[in-house]
């Protein structure tokens, strides 16, 4: 027993010891230790890029450690690939769902461990097993539905069942609430509690501190690849966690003055837009944005926000209704014409829409204005002018490294976002659609971008902000619209509402119903 005392990990479900993982140019995990007790919910918190996901990917065998040891239930094991992890009864629900969207729920769940009759896939057996799991953990799904037809919350359930189906005793959930409504989040927490009560161990990656407080037993905080703190949840508070996460006190709210609201600049009337598969995603939506205000659109991802943004910016066909900009009906205008009229756009997916990663920065800085006389003389690009302009922006927005010949792909996420923001602002828009401006950024970059958006507002620019982060919506918006299944559930101001009320609207309740119920 004395010998074991030295390294008795038997009470821990998971121990990761001195884990080192190097990526080209980055030390993603620098001698990280992690101790997770059996049957607890353990949070790993940290900013994006702190190395949380990297650490968990090693536990799940998706990537291999450069050095370090892993113990499961006290015994050291090697995890070289997901199969090893599955054999060790570890399961992982990834931030981006790992679902094959053209296959059915059943097929996704059993993939890799299919019940068979000889060589044939035993669909009926699979269905039965899944129904049993559903019942036991209260996770209801339709076994034969095709994944791409299901809402995100259900897809997440499928992910969890998938893990349970593999007999996982240790569940890793990577930012599971990012795409959920507050109500769905609460449902998820219920499920997690149920799992815990049945003896499962849960590792919960997040950067939302109130969630940590709400559900976990203990917390490991990471920053820049290192562990900066291990605490019991009951012994800590959000402010302390935040300090450990970022290394200094954070301003959780942005300073902003009264809005000086001007004339209406954008009006959307009874808009109908279809998503890629031809189903209606925006269903008769009406809204209006004035100069000098920030209108925030809250909502769970996938409720038509993307389609709304694309319809306003001209990237998607409008089926019915109107988009009126500066008094002109621009419903059928090309993206280019809208830009020329003074519309800016910070897109939700910076790698898909915002940047041409194979272009050098100086080309990225003129995207959308490349044919402006400033950069283009007839058919020919004015290269010296373009480079001078890019040099200025790099300095003004503190893009690092400040080299305009670098390819877009060579920058970090935060700096890529800075390039996009810098570009859009430099074009001097009167109105700007800002979609998920801080997704995946660290707190420093978030602060910078929030301040920039506020200063734009103060200069009289109308801003339409779309974000999945309620905190962001609350701290930036002058008015909040809540979007659910392609419609506006109600309009509120941050001062007169609560996250609960907005959450209910995000789940499909209309404001007037809520208020009448109250009354």
């Amino acid at each position, binding site marked *: 027993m004395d010998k074991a005392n030295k390294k008795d990990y038997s009470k821990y479900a998971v121990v990761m010891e001195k884990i080192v993982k190097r990526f080209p140019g980055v030390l993603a995990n620098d001698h990280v230790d992690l101790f997770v007790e059996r049957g607890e919910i353990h949070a790993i918190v940290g900013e994006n890029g702190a190395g949380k996901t990297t650490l968990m990917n090693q536990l799940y065998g998706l990537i291999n450690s450069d050095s370090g040891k892993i113990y499961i239930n006290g015994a050291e094991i090697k995890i070289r*690939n997901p199969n090893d992890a599955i054999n060790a009864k570890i399961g992982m629900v990834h931030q981006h769902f790992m679902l094959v969207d053209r296959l059915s729920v059943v097929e996704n769940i059993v993939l890799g461990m299919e019940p068979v009759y000889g060589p044939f896939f035993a669909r009926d057996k699979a269905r039965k097993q899944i129904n049993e799991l559903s019942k036991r953990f209260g996770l209801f799904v339709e076994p034969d539905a095709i994944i791409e037809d299901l809402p995100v919350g259900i897809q997440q359930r499928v992910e969890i069942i998938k893990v349970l189906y593999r007999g996982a005793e240790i569940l890793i959930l990577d930012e599971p609430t990012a795409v959920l409504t507050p109500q769905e989040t609460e449902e998820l927490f219920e499920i997690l509690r149920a799992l815990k009560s049945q003896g499962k161990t849960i590792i919960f990656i997040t950067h939302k501190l109130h969630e940590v407080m709400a559900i976990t037993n203990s917390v490991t905080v990471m920053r820049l690849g290192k562990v900066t703190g291990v605490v019991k949840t009951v012994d800590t508070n959000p402010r302390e966690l935040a300090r450990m996460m970022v290394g200094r006190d954070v301003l959780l709210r942005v300073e902003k003055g009264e809005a000086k609201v001007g004339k209406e600049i954008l009006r959307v009337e009874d808009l109908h837009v279809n998503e890629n598969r031809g189903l209606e995603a925006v269903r008769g939506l009406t809204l209006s944005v004035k100069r000098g205000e920030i209108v925030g659109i809250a909502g769970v991802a996938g409720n038509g926000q993307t389609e709304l943004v694309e319809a306003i910016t001209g990237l998607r066909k409008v089926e019915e209704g109107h988009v009126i900009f500066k008094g002109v009906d621009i419903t059928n205008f090309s993206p280019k014409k809208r830009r020329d009229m003074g519309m800016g756009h910070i897109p939700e997916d910076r790698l898909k829409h915002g940047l041409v990663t194979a272009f050098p920065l100086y080309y990225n800085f003129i995207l959308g204005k490349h044919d402006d006389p400033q950069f283009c003389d007839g058919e020919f690009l004015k290269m010296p002018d373009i480079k001078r302009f890019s040099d200025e922006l790099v300095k003004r927005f503190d893009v690092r490294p400040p080299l305009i010949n670098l390819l877009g792909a060579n920058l970090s996420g935060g700096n890529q976002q800075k390039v996009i923001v810098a570009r859009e602002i430099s074009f001097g828009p009167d109105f700007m659609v800002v979609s998920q401006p801080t997704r995946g950024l660290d707190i420093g970059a978030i602060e910078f971008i929030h301040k920039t958006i506020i200063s734009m507002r103060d200069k009289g620019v109308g801003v339409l902000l779309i974000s999945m982060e309620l905190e962001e919506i609350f701290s930036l918006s002058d008015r909040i619209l809540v979007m659910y299944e392609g419609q506006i559930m109600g309009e509120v101001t941050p001062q007169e509402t609560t996250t609960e009320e907005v959450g209910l609207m995000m789940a499909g309740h209309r404001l007037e119903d809520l208020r009448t119920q109250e009354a």
Partner: protein
Amino acid sequence: MNAWIQAIINVFINPIFYKSTLNQSTPLILAALGGVYSETTGVVNIALEGIMLIGAFGGVVGSYFTGNPWYGLALGVLLGVAMAALHAWASIRYAGDQIISGAALILLAQGITGFSLVELFGKPGSTDLVRSIPLVNLGSFENVPFFGKIFNSLSPLVYIAFASVAFSWFLIYKTRLGLRMRSVGNNPEAADTLGVNVYNVRYFGVLMSGVFASLGGAFLSIGELGQFTENMSNGRGFIALAAMIIGNWSPTGAMWASILFGAASAFNDQLQSQGILHLATNTQYLFGMIPYIITLIVVGGLVGKSRAPSSDGIPYIKD
């Protein structure tokens, strides 16, 4: 005009038109199936044309040196699989550009067959005659009106082609392996996280494309003729590729599209063979372009209905 209507009716009431359709579809079906296997797992394979050619060549070489056409078939398939393995190696192991690798293999197949033809048979152009795979005689079924004429004396490869369609349908939609193939073609990352070996499944898909495309090629050489001639696949690999797309990447769809092409070609032959039509000689060029124009129209008109596997053509690189 009446002569035309009469001629077209004549074509459709002639059982040989249907038999010819079967014969002309067979190599397309087999090669298109090859395409389905490869692309279901997410690897684009435009090298079908080259694999057919090498399969045709291998068939004749094997039959020539052993005197047994079935060994020829085996050799053809072996060479086809070898060529597919090169493609797999380039596009899976080394994440190469799949279309470019395919284009390279088409050239390689032409070069290798042309070159080896001279080295092995001492003369260019065509090989000596070899034993071909004996046709299947249905005995008294031959006397059944109409159908007897269609089905009598078909190459066993015709039956193999249709059996392969059924087999492939079952494999892809009803077995564990098929489920894994589809998952790997649509979301290799997801499959990987569940312990499915993406590379192995893709290798399987591409190697199977070698099996079927080379069977299609071997049909041309030892199924139909008993001889290899230079470049005898003559664009059928590309048509098979088109058939696979029109058939929405499914074995049965690819089969129907192949039959469509086979029928177009058989129709062309049969129509020209109508004594009552005295066609100007250069009108045959106008007939000749029909299958290609059909493809253009169908490919152009099938948007939305035809959907490639999501990760088709994208190499999977594990960090």
